[in-house]
């Protein structure tokens, strides 16, 4: 009985994985026309705003815990949609890069190599970020571990000052970002 469960369980997962693999291979592009048709809109500014820790800090202070969890989940869903679009576009870029690598023009071939490498890095990072956001979606009350981005940190500080001056709940003190 155990071996039946193992064999048919693994077989089911394998068939789904193979189905996805063949579907993915059908959606690759080899011309710029195909790329134009299939690319998704991915807004970097929107993603940065949705994942900005200072924005989250502001929301955490401004909203009730329940409202905050709800709003945070919505923001995470939108951010994950951005990431999925980026991952999709990166995949198209990678296949365009792979096609360009075959070009007889050495400049285009080199650009193609660079493009596919960068596209795969973006896809890897997008996937990692997506998993991280999934974790945050599951634990919406969790706090970001640390803020190291200088600009974000400074925005967070000014936001903190603004919030504390309005509410009087938090004492403001400046610290140097590391």
């Amino acid at each position, binding site marked *: 009985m155990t071996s039946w469960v193992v064999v048919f369980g693994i077989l089911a997962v394998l068939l789904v994985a193979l189905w*996805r693999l063949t579907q993915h291979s059908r959606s690759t592009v080899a011309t710029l026309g195909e790329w134009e048709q299939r*690319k998704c809109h991915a807004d970097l500014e929107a993603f940065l705003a949705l994942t900005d820790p200072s924005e989250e800090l502001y929301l955490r202070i401004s909203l009730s815990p329940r409202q905050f969890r709800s709003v945070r989940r919505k923001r995470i869903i939108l951010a994950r949609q951005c990431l999925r679009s980026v*991952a999709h576009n990166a995949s198209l870029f990678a296949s365009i890069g792979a096609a*360009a690598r075959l070009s007889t023009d050495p400049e285009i071939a080199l650009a*193609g190599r660079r*493009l596919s*490498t960068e596209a795969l890095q973006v896809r890897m990072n*997008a996937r990692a970020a997506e998993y991280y956001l999934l974790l945050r979606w599951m634990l919406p009350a969790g706090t970001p571990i640390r803020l190291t981005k200088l600009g974000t940190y400074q925005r967070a500080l000014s936001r903190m000052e603004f919030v504390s001056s309005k509410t009087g709940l938090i004492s403001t003190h400046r610290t140097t970002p590391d």
Partner: protein
Amino acid sequence: VRPMDPKHAIRMALWIVPLLLQLTIAAVMLRRSLFREFPLFFLYTLFVPLRDSVLLFAQADLNPWIYWVGEGVAVLLGMAVMYEMLSHMIQPYPFLRRAAVWLFQAAAIVGGLIGLLMLSQEVQFWRPGQPIETIVLLERSLRLVQVCLSLAVALFLSRFGLTWNHYVVGVVTGFGVAAGLGMVLLEFRAAHYISDSLFVLMSPLAHNCAVILWAVYFVPSRQREFAIDRVPTGGLGKWNQALQEFIGNR
């Protein structure tokens, strides 16, 4: 003229069709110089028809040994082909190498452990005087490892979008289907749900499915017009930086 026994006709068809198709695939690979890109798959494509041809002319008492030893070599060669496909796709991207090798090794270890666990639960294993039972159970475990490797490679390629090489996708899909179907048939045979004669009749089906898939991917010309006179960027650099910072902050 006596009509041919339908079982015999099916057996012959299942034996001859893949043999001819694999030789065609080998010829196509030679013509397109694909044997340089996929040397292990080319070797596999020649090895299996060669074994089947030897089986035709070998003495009857040698046939089971040639078949089962050949089957073991074919399964191991199939696993090496999976690694070849993975290596081929990640070769231009050194940053993916560690993750790919780690995943492949992990799949092999997990598959091997599950296979050993399944073997240890079988009372028929190592029963004296019944070597076929032992061989069937051993092959089932080997097929399980092959399935795990196919699964790992398929997941890796689709997760990272490394799916533009149709040959690689075809080879991985073919091996996955063959290993999966073979494993199920061996499971049925090990549990005695099918008779030996039905098992002998049906076991080439898995290989047939794989060979037909490979033929579909390899034989038609897949030359496409690569009309790329410029390479788009689409703000990838900015996205890469933003994502690295996002991940780095966590």
